[in-house]
């Protein structure tokens, strides 16, 4: 599955096709669902209409013959009541009824026990078709006590004409049985007392055939039940007269079937949708006249909706096949349309691999792919041009870097490289370090000895890089030149300031500290032009007091103040640029003056104030503080330790 998903993710043609087919499917589902729903309703309405018509037609047929029975019985009653005392006439009336209605099964004109004294307990004028003729006999006997029979008792007890539940009538002479239903009409004398019952029976075979023949659909069938729910018509002969519509519900409760049975028993007309013998069915039911019977047409849903379901399946199949074909052709078409893109992608790979002159295909198209191809071609040409320019620029940059490297070496070469140590001199030790932020920096320091004095300076040119380095070189040269003939630091500063300010077209400046230390006495004259005040690390750690003078390079006529201080033996003058106090860690926190003082104090406590050790400590401390942060400014430190050897 994951491989399939990965494959689809790699194939734009499949993804686009799937989306299109998905949307098409949704539209089809919505449209077809609506269509099927409405069509199904229409088919159901048609089925209801069809079944209702058939039921009405069958009911009319049945009622037609039932009415004939009822009319014939009424006429016979009229005759009986005209001659109630003549038993022989009853045989004639009974026979006459059958002669006039050959489709009737039999007729009895039965009287209450001992109504005709001469005939004893039983008198029933019974006529029945026998062969081509009609057999008429007296039907009552000890073996057939008619007045206990349903047909007699029902008319008597209900006191009105009625139809009996269908029953098997046994014809004793021929020992044959026939399923019949009897219309029973009570006969009363002038005083309203019951004298007998006229029973006219109808064979149900005709009715059964008529109802069984009702078959609106290939697998539909009809049933007929009596008042007690007994099946009298059913496609399963084993159920006829043996089971009622409720029988199976006794062991397997089925509320729908029970509801249908009760509705039919109540003589209702209607339709129910239910499951019968595992099939969803529509049952249409209607009572059969006044017989107490009810017929129903059971139509399986599969029959009613058979044509509809076939059509629906066919349409669904066509749609599915269509969607699959759509998917197939979409993938093919989109793949073909995207083919130029694939070629472009391959060419891009070639170009990306370095073959910039690879020839792009010309698709001769004006659509988006043509535009893309054209743009790609332009991009390739621009790329070639850009790469050429980049080559030139890179070469130029390499040249500049080389020059810078040389400049850096030259700059570093200007600075003193040899520092006097205890072995070289016994009156002073000096050490300094300069770490530029870029190849070349704007910091400077210098020192030289003349006439038993140490001339030294430290400075910081505004800005960085080449301009600062050039300004620094000029500053250092002028310092060397001026300090070679001048002893006073303020004059050196003023002279240097005048020179620098007059040639300062770029408005750069430099903070500078110049000191002249008498190595014999430790007396130091100094002048500070805006530079950080040096620390004195001796008996303690303190800052050398410095006046506020402007940096060098602004005003050529500025008078710088001279200051003096006595440096005691062993004291180290620690000079530095703001690259030390403003060194930043990754959180842009500054190293600041306090940390510088702390490190100097620690060094003093450890008797490590000797210049090289002090600067090493300071360097290690600032590196530890800065960590992985980039160096933001040039960092320069110089330490001068005076040792009075005259004592």
């Amino acid at each position, binding site marked *: 599955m994951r491989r399939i998903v990965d494959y689809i993710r790699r194939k734009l043609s499949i993804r686009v096709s799937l989306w299109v087919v998905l949307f098409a499917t949704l539209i089809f589902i919505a449209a077809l669902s609506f269509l099927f729903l409405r069509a199904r309703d229409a088919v159901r309405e048609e089925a209801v209409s069809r079944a209702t018509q058939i039921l009405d037609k069958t009911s009319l047929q049945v009622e037609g013959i039932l009415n004939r029975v009822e009319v014939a019985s009424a006429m016979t009653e009229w005759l009986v009541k005209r001659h109630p005392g003549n038993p022989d006439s009853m045989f004639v009336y009974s026979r006459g009824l059958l002669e006039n209605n050959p489709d009737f099964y039999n007729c009895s004109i039965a009287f209450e026990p001992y109504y005709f004294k001469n005939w004893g307990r039983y008198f029933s004028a019974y006529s029945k078709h026998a062969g081509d003729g009609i057999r008429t006999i007296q039907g009552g006997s*000890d*073996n*057939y*006590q008619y007045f*206990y*029979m*349903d047909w007699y*008792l*029902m008319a008597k*007890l*209900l006191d009105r004409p*009625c139809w*009996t*539940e269908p*029953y*098997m009538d*046994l014809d*004793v002479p021929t020992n044959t049985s026939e399923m019949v239903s009897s219309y029973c009409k009570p006969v009363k004398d002038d005083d309203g007392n019951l004298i007998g019952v006229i029973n006219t029976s109808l064979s149900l075979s005709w009715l059964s055939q008529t109802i069984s023949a009702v078959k609106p659909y290939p697998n539909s069938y009809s049933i007929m039940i009596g*008042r*007690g*729910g*007994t099946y009298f018509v059913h496609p399963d002969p084993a*159920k006829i*007269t*043996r*089971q*009622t*519509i*409720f*029988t*199976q519900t*006794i*062991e397997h409760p089925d509320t729908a079937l*029970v509801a249908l*049975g*009760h509705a039919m*028993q109540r003589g209702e007309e209607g339709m129910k949708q239910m499951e019968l013998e595992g099939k969803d069915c529509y049952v249409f039911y209607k009572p059969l006249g006044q017989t*107490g019977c009810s017929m129903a047409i059971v139509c399986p849903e599969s029959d009613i909706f058979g044509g509809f379901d076939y059509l629906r399946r066919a349409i669904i199949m066509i749609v599915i096949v269509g969607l699959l074909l759509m998917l197939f052709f979409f993938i093919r078409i989109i793949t073909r349309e995207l083919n130029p893109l694939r070629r472009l992608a391959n060419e891009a790979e070639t170009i990306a691999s370095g073959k910039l002159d690879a020839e792009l295909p010309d698709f001769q198209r004006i659509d988006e792919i043509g535009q893309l191809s054209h743009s790609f071609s332009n991009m390739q040409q621009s790329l070639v041009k850009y790469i050429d320019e980049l080559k030139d620029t890179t070469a130029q940059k390499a040249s500049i870097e080389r020059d810078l490297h040389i400049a850096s070496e030259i700059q570093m070469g200007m600075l003193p490289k040899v520092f006097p140590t205890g072995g070289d001199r016994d009156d002073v030790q000096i050490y300094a370090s300069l770490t530029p932020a870029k190849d070349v920096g704007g910091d400077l320091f210098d020192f030289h000895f003349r006439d038993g004095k140490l001339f030294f300076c430290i400075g910081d040119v505004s800005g960085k890089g080449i301009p600062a380095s050039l300004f620094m070189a000029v500053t250092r040269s002028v310092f060397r030149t001026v300090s070679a003939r001048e002893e006073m630091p303020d004059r050196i500063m003023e002279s240097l300031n005048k020179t620098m300010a007059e040639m300062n077209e770029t408005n750069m400046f430099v903070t500078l500290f110049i000191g002249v230390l008498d190595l014999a006495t430790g007396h130091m004259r100094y002048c500070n032009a805006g530079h950080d005040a040096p620390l004195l690390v001796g008996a303690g750690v303190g800052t050398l007091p410095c006046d506020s003078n402007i940096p060098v390079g602004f005003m050529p006529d500025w008078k710088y103040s001279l200051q003096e201080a006595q440096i005691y033996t062993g004291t180290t003058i620690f000079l530095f640029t703001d690259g030390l106090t403003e060194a930043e860690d990754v959180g842009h926190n500054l190293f600041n003056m306090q940390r510088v003082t702390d490190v100097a104090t620690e060094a003093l406590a450890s008797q490590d104030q000797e210049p090289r050790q002090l600067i090493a400590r300071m360097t290690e401390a600032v590196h530890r503080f800065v960590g992985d942060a980039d160096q933001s400014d040039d960092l320069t430190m110089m330490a001068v330790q005076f040792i009075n050897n005259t004592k």
Partner: protein
Amino acid sequence: MSVRTILRASAVAVLGLWAITAAAQDDAFVFTPQWTAQAQFAGYYVAETLGFYKDAGVNVRIEHPSVTQPAMSRLRKNDCQATTLQLCQALEIIDEGIPLVNILQTSMNNGMVIVSARGKDPLTQKGAKVGIWSVGFGQLAICMSIKDNLDYEWIRFAQNMNLFIAGALDATLAMSYNEYFQLAQAGMDVNDNNVYRFCDHGYNVQEDGVYMTRKYYAKHSDQARRFAEASRRGWEWAAEHPEEALDIVMQYVDREHIATNRVMQRLMLGEILRLQVDRESGQREFRLRPDMVELASSMMVENMMLDREITYKELVP
């Protein structure tokens, strides 16, 4: 027509000539149940089908009654040697002067009920039209109607429950193993509210037993005993294997073309087997209980259905 006259008439009609008991025309022992083939007689069908009668050395042939030849008519014509009767029927026949012997009593409880139309209590329907079988069976109901001053108007019917279902009757007598289930099968709601069970109201009198004339018994007591033993064996087997017994019942039902079904017969067999268990002992005792004979006899004498008390000793071999 008085109650006594009705019952007398039916008894005489049924057994008028029964006293003339003759020997069987052949060596077959013909047994006729009092109704058409149904699970009410399952034990006898089992005994015949599984050869219990043959094992007992009795050549039994079961022949059902027909419309033209009711069970009693067959007896009086010597067409059968034994038949089933309810205890009350047997008492009436003995009272008419035809000595009978109970060779096997199967029922230990009364299964008769009165079913009223929906929502009506039978005990509140004074003077109601109540259906009763035209061939008898209703003695206890008549006693109850008199005793409780219900004055039911008894409507004798020949066949089934159609009159009641059609609404022509207010209530009807029914057997708890037969018509009761027929009414349920007709979609009627039968429940404790509209059903009166005689066995629960002091009328628990045994019903079905196998009877033969004392005269025949005097000559064939051993045959009668072996028939009774084999029949009892058949009932016990049916109680242990009700579904297999039902299969056998349905064979007889189909052979006789009876309009019933397996569901009804299963319900009937279950109820018949339940009625065979004595309430007090919880056993199938297969015996007449003297107290029930005395109860039935005294009630029937009191209501003038019998001229004299019939004792337990007059019934047993």
